[in-house]
């Protein structure tokens, strides 16, 4: 039996065998007791989002989301353990309490939010689905792909968007579906498919892995909305708030120019917004009511930096992917990243 199916079985067995547990209230207490956050990330390795580097350290935007939560809880971004998950295993792993939070480039959709017993806490990357084709086909638009064979990974929103796009444009296609991303990559590379589809952020990193990256090009069309974000189990509002506000804290820090380097100096800032963020001043404590320390957000920024820093380091100019901020710029700079105020 396939190891993945086996894992799913094991995870499923958790529901069968576990003595009846009350819902997931008290996640924070459990995490504090065991001393680390167990975080589910991309197990097949998606450069820029979740993948181990040459030294075996997990790196990526999603990985930073996990580390930031660990910093908020423990004041130490290294108190996190990672579980590499396939697309197929991710939600089951969260449901069965294998992991405390999921940050695995997962698209927030209504059915996932309402039918799986999980809740998405925000959007740490606004993505959209695109196509990559061989240049030799002479295709310049996704609208020219009628009749094409398309390689795609199974069990993703991508697989469904692909079908919707071709159907709504009155085109036919032949999907060649693989369980793992690498298998789909290899099949496209061998010429099994005319086109490859996944989230646009992934296309660029996958293109770099091809035998001849210059033979392929990414088409301009973005055919779907893919808000990627962390998720937690339903029913523990405190834990959900912590994960949600950790992301907001990183956004607010960027908005007010608080960086990993200057966070200590910023403690003396006169700006009341910054003071509330960093827990400076008498009676300024937004951490304790949610079970964290007064300096929770200071720890997040000290540990992983603000959102902009994390973005540039993992997927932006500081990374091989060189993805522009685009939709992921702050709202004040024409993007969609917007955090409610700490007040």
């Amino acid at each position: 039996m396939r190891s993945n199916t086996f894992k799913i079985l094991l995870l499923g067995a958790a529901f069968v065998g576990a003595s009846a547990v009350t819902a997931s209230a008290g996640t924070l207490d459990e995490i504090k007791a065991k001393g680390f956050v167990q975080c589910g990330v991309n197990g097949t390795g998606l450069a820029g989002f979740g993948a181990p580097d040459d030294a075996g350290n997990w790196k990526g935007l999603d990985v930073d989301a996990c580390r930031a939560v660990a910093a908020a809880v423990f004041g130490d971004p290294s108190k996190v353990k990672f579980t590499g998950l396939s697309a197929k295993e991710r939600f089951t792993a969260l449901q069965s309490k294998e992991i405390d939070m999921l940050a695995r480039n997962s698209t927030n959709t209504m059915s996932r939010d309402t039918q799986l017993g999980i809740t998405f806490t925000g959007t740490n990357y606004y993505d959209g689905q695109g196509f990559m084709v061989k240049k030799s086909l002479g295709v310049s638009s996704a609208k020219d792909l009628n009749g094409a064979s398309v390689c795609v990974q199974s069990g993703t929103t991508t697989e469904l968007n692909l079908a919707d796009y071709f159907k709504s444009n009155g085109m036919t296609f032949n999907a060649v579906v693989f369980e793992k991303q690498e298998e789909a990559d290899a099949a496209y590379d061998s010429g099994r498919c005319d086109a490859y589809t996944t989230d646009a952020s992934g296309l660029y990193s996958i293109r770099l892995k091809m035998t001849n990256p210059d033979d392929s090009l990414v088409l301009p069309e973005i055919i779907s909305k893919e808000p990627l974000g962390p998720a937690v189990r339903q029913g523990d509002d405190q834990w959900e708030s912590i994960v949600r506000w950790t992301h907001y804290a990183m956004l607010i820090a960027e908005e007010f120019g608080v960086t990993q380097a200057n966070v200590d100096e910023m403690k003396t800032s006169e700006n009341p917004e910054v003071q509330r963020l960093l827990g400076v001043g008498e009676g300024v404590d937004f951490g304790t009511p949610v079970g964290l320390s007064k300096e929770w957000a200071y720890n997040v920024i000290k540990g992983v930096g603000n959102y902009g820093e994390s973005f540039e380091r993992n997927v932006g100019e500081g990374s091989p992917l060189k993805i522009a901020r685009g939709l992921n710029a702050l709202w004040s700079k024409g993007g969609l990243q917007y955090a409610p105020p700490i007040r």
Partner: protein
Amino acid sequence: MTLRDKTADDSSRSWVRAVLYDATIRGWVFQGLVLIFLVLFSAWVIHNTAANLRAANIPFGFDFLNMRAGFDISQKPINYTLDSSHAQAFKVGLINTIILSALGIVFATIIGFVVGISRLSGNWLLARAATVYVETLRNVPLLLQLLFWYKAVLSVLPGPRQGYMLPFATNLSNRGLTMPRPIPGAGFDIVLWIVPVAVVLAWAVARWARRRQVATGQSFPVFRASLGLIIGLPLVVFLAIGAPLTFEYPELKGFNFVGGMVIHPELTAMLLGISLYTASFIAETVRAGILAVSTGQSEAAFSLGLRPSQTMRLIIVPQAMRVIIPPLTSQYLNLTKNSSLALAIGYPDLVAVFAGSTLNITGHAIEVIAITMAVYLALSLITAALMNWFNSRVALVER
């Protein structure tokens, strides 16, 4: 008084003893206890699972099967569109698994018998080649072999525009083997009805030939006659009613061939991998079966004047089959279960379609995995039942 008391005491004790040590009663009691335990245990498992799922806010049920699937499947033996339900996707996956397993069993059996007999051949080169084949293929993990064959199939074949043109408008490229699709015209169903008639006739001929041989000792070429009947009769009828069959030819339009039928490279790679792998085990089973028949049997057959082919068919094989069939059944079951490795190379079998796409889109992991396991169990039990029936047919009747 004391004496009578003692007797009464003794008789009651011996009654208890009789009950305690009675094999039948004890058997019933223990079986009853085990049954009660099993029932309680399954009830606990079901109840506990339901309670835990409820506590985790995960809905449980099979309504998701009627929801729109919305994903494409590359190999669609039955009607399936993007608007079909998950139940329909399940059927497509199931049929794809059955196609793969059935073809795999046929090919593995043929290759296995050829290789198994070759290993016993007097020809040094042939026997050694068969040994190398068996030892190589059965000792390399199947998943690696599948990935190898898939890579091999894809890298050998050119793109659709540069594909090899073969006779009968067939084209071979890395998109698969594309060929014309037969479209039955009016009256073609008559031909299909003739086939079972021909089979019944062939059976009658075989029966008559056997009786005649028992009575007179004269033999009759039953195999050739049956083959002629089963193929020839429908063919004659087909031609007599004016060959009502047209073909839809595949055409190269845009990126791919449109129309016609296609065998995808995923199916080819799966069949290559799974048949060659299982054949290496079947070859050993066949060799063991033939070696289990003592040489005295063939010597006796020769001394009665039977020809070598008759000796093989009438004396050796029936006795060897007795040894071959039980392990052969296990190999068939293994092949069916191994076909679930298909998802590694993108062949849309039950595990890839249903326990892959459907599971992920609906999130009903427990239901989907339970259904999938039940299907493999059912497939295996059916295969085993058929093989057991066949075994009892060919089993040596001791007189």
